[in-house]
């Protein structure tokens, strides 16, 4: 069969270790059609998202409680019809609001629009469990629009900024890969959530960090936190980064004060409707941080859940002891990375300037390592929380091609039990194979940049994942262990995440940081 679209001979050095995504952009460059690269990427991202959205969502047709889809819709219903003072008190048994205020505001805006188009979609009480095609279409489009407004521009701007130095092909490939990362698409557009808003604000704050606009960075991170409390997973790294920046010589204290004011201001504005009463604020706090719910939810690929397969922690300790245990372990886990981040940035603030590109890289590694620490060791983790480490991991896709490709494969695999419940097997397979085909190294053994042992290990894990899927499809689990396959999935994914955690920590601590002064003189010479 003739090879369609293969770049003509004479591609030179670039041609060897190139994944199909890179080859596409390479081809566009060769055809002098760079202009269509970004539009086609964006349209393709839109197409894939909408196609996934044609499939099932969480809790479809599962009366009386449904799932995350109904929770989000219900919040629109209640925020539109109930006064803000009632928002965090209204019928808590039926999907009471338990996200921070920005989510509530987003629900209110979407709810107003829904009310304008068709009031029955958000009629108070009447609309519970509404699943008409038109209302579903509306819900799906809100996710798409919010992502297009917040997440997508942040990613495009970040990779197109001068602080991310890479050639055109690498730039476009990175944008394509980040926007088509399967996990976020599957959870937001399949399962149904608005994670891209929280992660979008996070990417915005990385973007502003790259542009050295630290106040805006702080604002964006606060917005991320105020959308979903889960963004706390990133807080230590962001805090360490910004604090270190306050040690720079001339205006350090000034920056510190400004940052404090900006953070307090952002939180204040977000909490304005409830400022009057401490009972209200307290209610928001206990709704947002429901410690009583337990160590983890369902089966999650984090350490506690994996350990639980061997030792029943929940039986051995009380809740408060477990909270302390989890908090201690998490702190220990994120400390090395945060201390390193703080010291490296502080050193640069004091004397030797850090290249902006290195600062961004360092921040991304810090974000990856703290959020992974939280995912693996903290209290009350969802399987969906893997999206949080994934976001900064993907920003490193150019630096760590094989690690990121592999991480995404495993993360998607760890989401399988959840996606299976939502009836999203078909898109799961398309996205899993699609990612491996377009991005991953085993699919293109020509990639010479990947060390051979890694390639082999990646092949092995892929085989393991496929074998687990095959076993689940063909062999029914023994009656005594009905959750066998889910537990196996958890154990596998968890051990992989621990390995990645160790690897990314190692990479951060050994990151060669080019000093700006020497680098600057070198670029001058080049010019």
């Amino acid at each position: 069969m003739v090879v369609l679209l293969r770049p003509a001979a004479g591609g030179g050095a670039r041609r060897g270790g190139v994944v199909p995504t890179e080859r596409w952009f390479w081809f566009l460059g060769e055809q002098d059609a760079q202009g269509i690269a970004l539009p086609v990427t964006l349209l393709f991202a839109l197409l894939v998202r909408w196609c996934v959205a044609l499939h099932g969502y969480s809790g479809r047709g599962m009366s009386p409680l449904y799932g995350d889809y109904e929770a989000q819709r219900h919040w629109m219903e209640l925020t539109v019809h109930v006064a803000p003072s009632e928002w965090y008190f209204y019928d808590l048994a039926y999907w009471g609001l338990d996200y921070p205020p920005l989510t509530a505001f987003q629900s209110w805006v979407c709810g107003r629009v829904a009310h304008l188009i068709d009031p029955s979609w958000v009629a108070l009480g009447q609309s519970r469990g509404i699943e008409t095609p038109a209302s579903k279409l509306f819900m799906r489009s809100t996710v798409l629009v919010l992502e297009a407004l917040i997440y997508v521009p942040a990613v495009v701007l970040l990779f197109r900024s001068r602080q991310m130095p890479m050639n055109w092909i690498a730039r476009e490939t990175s944008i394509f890969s980040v926007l088509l990362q399967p996990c976020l698409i599957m959870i937001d557009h399949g399962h149904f959530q608005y994670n891209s808003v929280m992660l979008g604000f996070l990417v915005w704050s990385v973007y502003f960090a790259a542009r050295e606009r630290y106040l805006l960075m702080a604002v964006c991170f606060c917005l991320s936190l105020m959308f979903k409390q889960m963004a706390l997973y990133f807080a230590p790294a962001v805090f360490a980064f910004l604090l270190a920046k306050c040690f720079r010589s001339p205006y350090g204290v000034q920056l510190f004060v400004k940052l404090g004011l900006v953070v307090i201001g952002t939180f204040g504005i977000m909490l304005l409707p409830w400022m009057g009463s401490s009972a209200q604020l307290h209610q928001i706090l206990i709704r947002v941080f429901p410690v009583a719910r337990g160590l983890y939810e369902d089966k999650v690929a984090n350490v506690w859940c994996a350990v639980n397969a061997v030792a029943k922690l929940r039986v051995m300790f009380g809740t408060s002891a477990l909270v302390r245990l989890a908090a201690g372990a998490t702190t220990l886990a994120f400390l090395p990375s945060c201390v390193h981040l703080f010291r490296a940035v502080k050193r640069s603030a004091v004397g030797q300037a850090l290249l902006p590109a290195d600062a961004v890289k360092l921040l991304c590694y810090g974000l990856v390592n703290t959020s992974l620490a939280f995912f693996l060791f903290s209290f009350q983790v969802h399987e969906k929380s893997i999206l949080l480490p994934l976001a900064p991991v993907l920003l490193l896709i150019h630096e760590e091609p094989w690690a990121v490709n592999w991480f995404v494969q495993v993360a998607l695999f760890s989401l399988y039990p959840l996606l299976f419940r939502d009836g999203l097997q078909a898109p799961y397979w398309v996205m899993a194979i699609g990612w491996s085909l377009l991005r991953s190294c085993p699919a293109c053994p020509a990639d010479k940049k990947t060390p051979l042992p890694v390639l082999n290990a990646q092949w092995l894990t892929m085989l393991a994942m496929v074998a687990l899927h095959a076993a689940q499809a063909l062999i029914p689990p023994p009656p005594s262990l009905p959750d066998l396959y889910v537990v196996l999935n958890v154990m596998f994914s968890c051990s992989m995440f621990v390995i990645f955690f160790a690897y990314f920590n190692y990479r951060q601590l050994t990151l060669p940081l080019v000093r700006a002064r020497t680098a600057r003189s070198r670029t001058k010479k080049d010019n």
Partner: protein
Amino acid sequence: MLGATDIAFLGVGSGIKLLLWPAYHSTDFEVHRNWLAITGSQALRRWYVEDTSEWTLDYPPFFAWFEWVLAHAARWWDPQIVRLDSMGYASSSCVAFQRLSVMVSELVLYAALGRFVRASGSSMQSKIAAALVFLSPGFLFVDHVHFQYNGFLFGILVYSLVFAMEGRDLLAGATFAALLCFKHIFMYIAPAYFVYLLLNYCVVRGSQRRAARGGRLDMRASAWRLAKLGAVVLAVFGAAFGPFAALGQLPQLGARLFPFKRGLCHAFWAPNFWALYAAADRLLLVALRAPASASSTRGLVGDTSFGVLPAVPPLVTFAATLLAQLPACIVLVRGRRSPQRFVQSVVLCAYASFLFGWHVHEKAIILILAPLGLLMAAPSQRTLRMFAVLATAGYYSLFPLLFGAQELPVKAALLLMWVLCALALLRSDRNVAAWACLSAPERAYVLGHVPLFVAAELVPSAAFGRLQFLPLALVSVYTALGVTYSWLGLLVEFLRP
């Protein structure tokens, strides 16, 4: 063998097609399911008689055999599919089976295009042209959403055209005859085949056979070739229709294959000459303030009646089509005959029947666009311009086929992506990209589809008040202008000796 890029290309295409499974499917889905049931559960003599469902078998016998093969797989997959009484059966397993059968059978098109690329010397431009045909919105909309098997059928057509390009005329003729026995709509382009095979294959001149035109007609060799071609074509038709002739069912088949009961225009006016004619009639009606008798857009499939302009009987459309097909034959008679000119003639033939035919479906635009797409391997500047205009208008005219709000982002994104790629990647034989070839009015026309989309798809229908037909009429008139314009341009280009 499949290379890494083939796999990536096929993988991305198949991924999107797989994800589109839950999207809207038309009644054609049930039509084909019913044909699976008929061929899978009934004896041969019942195939064209069976009428439990209103969707009776009305494709020629080879397609029935194709369904028969599929029915075997379907019985194994889910026996419910092939039962005559499971009317309207569209469970997820049935959808999966039918959608999958479209995707798998479409590989014929992929293989055919691969052969086309090799026949064109594996040039980059031929690969781009082939890729744009394979992933065209035409097949994606009509096959993978609306539901039909065009990919498979056009694969056979491309094979036949490539055989002709390779100089294997007899094989090309046989393949085309087989294609006619799959779906008789391809008769639209039969005149081009007839003339080409007659002149290029059957007529042998002088001693060096085909080489020189000036040579004397070699009667014996020509007669022998004519006999060979005739025998092959007859054999194909005999294989298809023979069994039914033996059963004495030919009149029944004829009635099924050619139902002359439909109106001039389809429910949605396909963007052809008659759409412009009907629109002119409407405008005159308003201008003359004549009393309206009936609106052709209000009635569904039925007779179109005109208010001011004279009615168009089928015979007139027939004559107009034949007249318009004359240039297609002239292309083959004048100047040097080459496979390239043969494909041009096929395009003009398809064009003639699309523009002037009776009850033309908008889907028939693919019959023009697929062969013309093959010419995009090395097009002249004007051909490329006309293709860009025609493809944009023609594929846009398929939008009303997928009318649901759910499919809106799908069709918009797919068409935009395709048009962007086509305009940036296709190059004329002087190495100028398509967009750079377009004149200012042509660019304006292509861009004009954006406001058209906003008016026809995004503005709520309530805004049109009593003129509910306006958005659809707007689409068919606007796209008909582009289709007709490209026809004139291609006529000028192809008729140059």
